[in-house]
């Protein structure tokens, strides 16, 4: 494995000019959502960067995350990133299959023990679940994760399933699916949620690790702040309409055509932290809200169980009208009965009551 060469050396070997390298660094800064002024620092770091080994495990997943990654519309940069990264195991992307593939994984683990980056997409049946719900080469997901974890430098959980449990965990969670961080306790974990995550965010996080060799700053959900630091809502180009109170009421009304805010159509942008509004999808072509679809909140925990996608964020998941009415009726009965009892008592008291006389008054004197 030629992991000893720095990235700078490798790029020059590939005939990348200095202007090309400068451009590469500018693109990388942009990718990492860093200010363009960081490009020189990135260049310096990249000159020294080593080629890390990456082991990518796919568990209860739909391959959407991998699809997203490979649909990244910056193939040059992508190639470069993936080229400088030694993707030693990824059972969808690698050429080898079957036992050869598993051997590659074991070899890579041995060769880079304690240094490799472990990438996981998909949730996995938890310790108390039937491990048979998801296995690879006869090995349960949990066992494979725990083995791979032991020698990993850090773990990147790609996609909402790996980060938060995702759709496999949706009620009633038949497979007992858990997230990676439910299992990992002693290794740094970076969550890169999204269903799937924005491709540039996946590569951006990898680039960050590659360039700086350390974990980025994370939020409460262990998401890199660089990409998940702001709510969709706060970066949405439709935000001015929200602030002015201009809303699309249906998917085909005037407001929808005029590009007004989709809050009333269920947009979860206010509670969703992701980079869609600025990074966009398909090489910056568009993103869901721009396409007229409310944000589903796919990069947030429990988005799958948080009520209808087309119900406004402030509306409760389910309104139990029957219970409220029943409680009201109980209140009416209890209140009514209590008053009736009091009234009966007062009336009985009045009937038995003796009028106040002046003689009685005088007794006090």
């Amino acid at each position, binding site marked *: 494995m030629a992991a000893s060469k720095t990235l700078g050396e490798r790029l020059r070997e590939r005939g990348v000019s200095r202007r090309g390298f400068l451009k590469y660094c500018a693109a990388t800064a942009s990718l990492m959502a860093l200010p363009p002024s960081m490009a020189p620092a990135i260049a310096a770091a990249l000159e020294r960067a080593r080629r890390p080994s990456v082991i990518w495990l796919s568990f209860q997943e739909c391959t959407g995350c991998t699809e997203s990654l490979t649909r990244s519309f910056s193939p040059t940069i992508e190639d470069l990133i993936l080229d400088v990264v030694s993707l030693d195991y990824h059972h969808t992307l690698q050429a080898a299959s079957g036992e050869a593939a598993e051997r590659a994984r074991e070899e890579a683990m041995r060769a880079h023990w304690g240094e490799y980056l472990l990438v996981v997409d998909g949730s996995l049946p938890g310790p108390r679940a039937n491990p048979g719900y998801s296995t690879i080469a006869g090995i349960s997901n949990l066992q494979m994760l725990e083995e791979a974890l032991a020698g990993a430098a850090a773990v990147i959980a790609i996609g909402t399933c790996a980060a938060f449990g995702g759709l496999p965990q949706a009620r009633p969670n038949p497979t007992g699916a858990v997230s990676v961080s439910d299992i990992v306790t002693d290794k740094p974990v970076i969550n890169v949620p999204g269903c799937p995550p924005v491709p540039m965010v996946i590569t951006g996080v990898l680039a960050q690790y590659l360039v700086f060799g350390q974990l980025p700053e994370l939020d409460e959900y262990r998401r890199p702040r660089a990409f998940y630091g702001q709510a969709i809502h706060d970066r949405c180009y439709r935000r001015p309409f929200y602030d002015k109170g201009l809303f699309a009421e249906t998917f085909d009304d005037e407001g929808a055509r005029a590009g007004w805010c989709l809050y009333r159509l269920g947009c979860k942008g206010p509670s969703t932290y992701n980079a869609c509004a600025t990074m966009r999808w398909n090489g910056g072509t568009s993103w869901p809200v721009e396409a007229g679809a409310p944000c589903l909140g796919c990069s947030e925990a429990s988005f799958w169980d948080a009520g209808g996608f087309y119900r406004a964020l402030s509306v409760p998941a389910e309104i139990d009208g029957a219970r409220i009415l029943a409680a009201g009726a109980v*209140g009416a009965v209890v209140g009514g009965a209590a008053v009736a009892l009091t009234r009966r008592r007062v009336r009985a008291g009045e009937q038995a009551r003796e009028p106040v006389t002046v003689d009685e008054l005088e007794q006090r004197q």
Partner: protein
Amino acid sequence: MSDPMAFLLWVKGPMFNWALAIFALGTLARLLEIFLLGRRPNYAEPRGGEWGPGLRTVLTRSVADPGTFQRAPFDVLVGWIWHVGFLIALLLFIPHIELIQALIGLGWPGLPNPVVDAATAVTLVALVATLIHRLRHPVKRHLSTAEDYLIWTVTFLPLITGYLAYHRLIGPYPLALGLHILAAEIFLIVLPFTKLTHIFTAFIARWYNGAIFGRKGVQS
């Protein structure tokens, strides 16, 4: 890992239904407790009507008479400011309107967010001022019970948590939003069992006041 989100879903789901149920139970019980008591027949020859003056008082009592305004300008002004601000935040913030529409099917246009935001900020300041006033004014201090401070807190919390959530001043956001909803639910639960009932009963009280005076030919 999903604790704040689980919390948010709990306050938006089961807790919300519980809060509304307790609110419905308590409010209906209280309203019946009032109306079922009724009034004794009044045999005195009336000088004026009851309904008209009663309804008029329901409206007019919102505005203080000039003398009272002179003697207690703080109470009148700040009282107005925070009540109006609270109502703006409650009834004219779009997400709230959405919620009300989902609940009762009635909706209305909201105000632009910067306006609601400003109203909320003003209301928060006004509420703090009312607390200070309550702690310092001899009559208010003397009158105040633990319940009064509880009610102040219960009123303040939905506003401050809403403000913090809107401006994302505390995180993570699901926790901030969840706390806001929970604060509103506490408000709903506490309402029927405390002086917060005045939200409904003040109008009943004003009507009785106007009717009692109106019958005697005085517009109260």
